[in-house]
């Protein structure tokens, strides 16, 4: 390899490194989700000051909404949350219910809802909002494939998020993943309740979350459960309902059985 070529390569590498490190500086601020494997893959948690995309099929919209809500609750840390959505998505999947939000353990007082008439104004509003550092997170909810949300729009949002430190969450329902500048990209499905007797109560919300893209680590697929009381994700529990802790003053029944046998 000639010297000139090597030095050109070195220059390019240097440039790329500078671009990358500019992001890395911001990405040190990470929020653990609570699911240990996922946190491991994400190098400690979900990066703040970045864009994260959550995709889902049309009918899995509510599961994805719940997941995004959980992520927003984790990253926003008692700061206001701006939720931008198209008018159309409300007809398709229903309006975001604040009582439902409170049931998930999140605070409906901090949610400001923006109903945009079309994708352009939704994108413009979210770019504006991402530049406002008083917010904790901005959620942009789009239904269906959109031409307008291209690489340029995505880059614009990423830059706004990086400069202000606000986290952007894109909820893309009934859409196919496209190239973007997102930090992570997820595909969401609803997961079954843990096996138990049929016709019995279900438990906490469970998500089948597939990490399709991760800029700084491996991908993976996990079943995650949202703990409404602790406000964090966790590994799936075996029982649908919370199990009472074993009484300390009595021996474990399993041990007793083994002794008897």
């Amino acid at each position, binding site marked *: 390899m000639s010297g000139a070529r090597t030095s050109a390569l070195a220059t390019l590498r240097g440039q790329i490194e500078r671009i990358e490190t500019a992001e890395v500086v911001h990405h040190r601020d990470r929020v653990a989700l609570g699911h240990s494997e996922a946190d491991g893959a994400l190098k400690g948690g979900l990066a703040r000051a970045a864009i994260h995309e959550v995709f889902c099929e049309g*009918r*899995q*919209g*509510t599961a994805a*909404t*719940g997941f995004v*809500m959980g992520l927003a609750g984790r990253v926003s840390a008692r700061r*206001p949350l*701006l939720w931008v959505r198209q008018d159309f998505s*409300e007809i398709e*999947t*229903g*309006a*975001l*219910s*604040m*009582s*439902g939000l*409170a*049931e*998930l*353990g999140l*605070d*409906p*007082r*901090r*949610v*400001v*809802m*923006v*109903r*945009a*008439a079309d994708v352009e*104004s939704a994108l*413009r*509003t979210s770019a*504006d*909002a991402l530049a*406002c*550092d*008083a*917010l904790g997170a901005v959620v942009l909810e789009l239904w269906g494939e959109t031409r307008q949300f291209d690489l340029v729009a995505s880059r614009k949002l990423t830059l706004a998020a990086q400069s202000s430190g606000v986290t952007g969450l894109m909820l893309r329902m009934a859409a196919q993943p496209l190239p973007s500048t997102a930090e992570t990209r997820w595909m969401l*499905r*609803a*997961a*079954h*309740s843990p096996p138990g007797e*049929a*016709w019995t*109560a*279900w*438990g*906490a*919300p*469970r998500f089948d979350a597939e990490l399709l893209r991760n800029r700084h680590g491996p991908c993976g697929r996990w079943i995650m459960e*949202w703990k*409404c*009381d602790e406000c964090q994700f966790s590994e799936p529990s075996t029982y*649908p309902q*919370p199990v009472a802790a074993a009484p300390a003053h009595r021996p474990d029944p399993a041990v007793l059985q083994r002794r008897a046998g």
Partner: protein
Amino acid sequence: MIHALDEAAERLGLHIGQPLANARAMCPDLKVFDADVVADAKTLSDIADWCDRFTPLVALDPPHGLFLDITGCAHLFGGEAALLQTLVRALARQGFAVSAAIAGTSVCARTLTRQASGSIVADGGEAEAIRRFPLSALGASEAITTGLRRAGLKTIGDVASREPHEITARFGARFSMLLAHALGQGDAPISPRKPLPDYIVEKRFAEPIATDTMIAMTLSRLADTLIASMEKQGKGARRLEAAFFRTDGVVRAIMVETGRPVTRSVVVDRLFRERLDALADPLDPGFGFDMVRLSASRTEIVVQEQRDLDAHVHDNDELSALIDRIAARIGGKRVDVHLPQDTHIPERAVLAAPAQHHLAAAMQAEWPARVESEPPLRPLRLFDKPEPIKVPFATVPDGPPHQFTWRRALHAVVRVEGPERIAMEWWRQDGRQLTRDYFRIEDAEGLRFWIFRDGLYEGEAFDGDGKPVSPNWYVHGLFA
């Protein structure tokens, strides 16, 4: 029936109120157009908009009159005579036939316009000025004018010379009041179309401006002046209006509202830029604007807060500034916060209120606490209108379904919890609504639904003959 006519027709002897057939008989080649009262009113209101450049107090006097209260404004235009001349000339240039007059009272001025257009009557000279005019100029009803004429009173002076109580006894207090006002004894207040703004700044141009940069620059300069004058009195603006007066008489007003009082001209500037950017029908300068006015129509006293180390206050300020900007762009009704309501009916439990006005209330609201260690009891997504589902049968009459069809897809029920019975509020007068039994359901795919049966089984729903029918099922929401 003739509704209005021009001078040429008047010279031929036609008059308003004459049947059209008679008029045609007098003048066979008469040109007739249908009267359009609505368009007339619109034109009058457009002219009133244009007259806003002389004074903020413009009142309509239908069908074709305008009152302008020029108290304290005349000197800006070089005195009363010059103002009158400017106004009449400008309107005449636009093709209107104008008669105008200035007097101490509005009724006197109106009487003058009907008989002596262009006259200016000083205070105290009203009675003398209108003494010789016929009664019709007063603008009283036809019956009164005729009645007075029959009594031999032909001019306003004749009537004024009678004792007021005689006139009142015969023609009512309203007429004698009108007469007194016309004679300059007391004044009837006019009712301006718009409330008087608290602060007004404006800029006139000898040469009309048309470019966006010039408009933006003018606005930001006006904002500086406006904010400076409001600051002196410790006020902040809640509602701002920019009015653009085009050279051809069209006036375009653009309004911006804010959630909290604005005290910085940069903010005003930015809000208007957002608003102008997002206009569905952009500002059309035509041949240019010759005047731009910025007014603060609602203001509030601003308590100067000292910024302390607590960043929380600051954050709220920034949030409401962001909300104002978004609202200026897409409309205040599209940005909501949520307030809990004291009801157990799911669709009424939350009220969405405009964020600009209710941000503080929403931040303080008390939401019902969730039950610890329970899975969510309310769905994350709620349909505005419950969507009907097809349920083939239920295991037990009162129980949940085994499967159901929603949006043309069949869902097999795997897990159920319920029912949670929600009775409608009988004290509301919005028709009889049925009791609902809600079930939380998970299907084979893991999707979770909130469905309900509208009405108790064989208890509430009846057909036309009074026979019980099986109630309908609906999906009301979706759980995460």
